[in-house]
């Protein structure tokens, strides 16, 4: 009853999400650490949902990681973002869909800053003209990529081959949602459900048959910390914060973690491996970890995509326990095969984190 009331409250925080014709802004981290994820996202939008979404060869990093690490000025990132707007104009689009949560925060922050300081917008326009000869019109609609999966979650349900239900028990799978800090903590109004009760991933969990896990450190940062992770000497900040979350969720025995930020997905996956190596501590059942997926990877599984075609073999935490519970059929022998079935050998197995 209490959870129904909460969902109603979250429903009241809604935002405008354009219905079609999107310009896609790619993510540095998602492309590198989960290479098939963005193409899967584009495929789901185009082929499963029939939407028009544009992938631009001329686009670059928004430079957000450099900015939040203190090595480039605010004016630099604002001008890079202004160039992205100009490219979007050239391509004939006005709805921006951003893959990275850091970038989404950057785009929304810059547009808000320009509202408060119009003279800064003018300065950036002049910077862009001097540097590149370009001009721009601001986007009409800016959303994070997870917002679109949220918006079309029922359409995905209608085509679903699998659900978030344990085939052995018939019960809902317990799913942790982790929202990247810059999705709504900077401007709660731009996130579905706001900052305190974000519903963007919880809505997918509810729709696809899972059960949300409401644990004490649900809103705690994953610990990226920008410069803190980038420096080997400072990386304890990152693993310590992820451990705060894992220790807090452990008593609830989650079957799966999903995240909307590429960095958070990476850290929750890889720090489980590191904690196992350092302390022989694992968080899943029978020595496995808790699988960590991006929202498009989860949508892909629900829609029946082959797990090895969408890159789930590239997660350090083995996903098979989840696939088995969801009743997803897969061929173990195909997991580590290359192009045309080429034998690529097998990765070394971690010492303490059970893998297959």
């Amino acid at each position, binding site marked *: 009853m209490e959870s129904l009331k909460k969902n109603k409250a979250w429903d009241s925080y809604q935002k405008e999400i354009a219905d079609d014709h999107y310009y896609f802004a790619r993510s540095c981290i998602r492309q590198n650490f989960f290479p098939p994820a963005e193409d899967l996202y584009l495929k789901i939008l185009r082929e499963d949902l029939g939407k028009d979404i544009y992938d631009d060869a001329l686009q*670059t*990093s928004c430079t957000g990681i450099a900015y939040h690490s203190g090595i480039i000025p605010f004016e630099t990132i604002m001008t890079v973002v202004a160039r992205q707007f100009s490219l979007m104009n050239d391509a004939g689009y006005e709805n921006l869909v951003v893959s990275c949560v850091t970038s989404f925060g950057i785009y929304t922050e810059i547009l808000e800053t320009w509202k408060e300081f119009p003279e800064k917008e003018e300065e950036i326009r002049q910077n862009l003209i001097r540097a590149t000869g370009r001009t721009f019109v601001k986007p009409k609609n800016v959303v994070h990529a997870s917002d679109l999966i949220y918006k079309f979650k029922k359409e995905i349900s209608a085509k679903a081959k699998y659900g978030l239900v344990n085939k052995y028990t018939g019960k809902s799978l317990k799913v942790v949602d982790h929202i990247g800090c810059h999705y709504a903590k900077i401007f709660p109004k731009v996130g579905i459900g706001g900052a305190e009760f974000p519903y963007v991933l919880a809505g997918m969990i509810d729709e696809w048959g899972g059960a949300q896990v409401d644990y004490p450190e649900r809103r705690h940062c994953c610990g990226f910390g920008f410069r803190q992770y980038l420096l080997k000497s400072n990386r304890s*900040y990152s693993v310590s914060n992820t451990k705060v979350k894992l220790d807090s969720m452990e008593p609830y025995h989650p079957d799966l973690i999903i995240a909307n930020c590429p960095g958070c997905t990476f850290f929750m996956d890889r720090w489980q491996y590191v904690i196992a190596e350092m302390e022989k501590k694992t968080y899943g059942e029978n020595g496995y970890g808790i699988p960590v997926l991006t929202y498009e990877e989860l949508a892909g599984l629900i829609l029946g995509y082959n797990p090895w075609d969408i890159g789930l073999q590239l997660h350090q935490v083995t996903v098979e326990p989840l696939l088995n519970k969801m009743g997803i059929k897969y061929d173990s022998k195909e997991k580590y095969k290359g192009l045309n079935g080429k034998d690529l*050998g097998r990765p070394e197995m971690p010492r303490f984190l059970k893998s297959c």
Partner: protein
Amino acid sequence: MGYYKELQKDIRFKEGLKACISCGVCSAICPAAQFSDYDPRLVINAVQTGDDAEIKKLLESDTIWYCGECLSCKTRCPRGNTPGYIIQALRALSIETGLFIESEQGRKQLAIKRTVGDHILKYGYCVYIDEVDTDMFPEQGPIWDWLRKNRVDLLEKLGTNYNKLGKGTLRKTSEESLSDLRKIFDETGATQRFYKIEEYSRKKALEEGIAFSTEKDDYFMKVYEK
């Protein structure tokens, strides 16, 4: 130097500091305060006095480099302040004045400039698979070694456009786009900031007798790893 006056020119400072009542909510919610010798409330207290001597102490301290910029403080401050933005302004001024070189944490900016900063201008991305190995990033784990070793085959199988011009995941960024980035960096102060980070670091390395050249030299490894 009038440090407070300089901070007041920074748009992030204007956005970040309204009037702090020192309630400590930012410190309670701060992930950095949980694990580092860092207390955003005290930083804001010091800055709010407008005392240049106090601000100078911050600019040459490790303190301002502990923030992780998660911006949880922005959501929670009951008076509309953003300690994370004030930290951004302090960090920018610390580099501008060269005071970053006085602190162990500040000196580490060279490693970030030579990785993320240089990668943006080389690849068009903050990070690129070719530059990330498990010596530098051991937490990537054996799965990353396997991917890196087989990346040409595997990334083609997985539908990316790795290291080729055109659209798609991990594509090679065109010279046109890289040239635009370089010109934007020149126009907006990033190139100058990079120069300052390198130049102050070079002087520090000379003072300490540590080899300093480019990329992953001895000075880089020292600030990156220790």
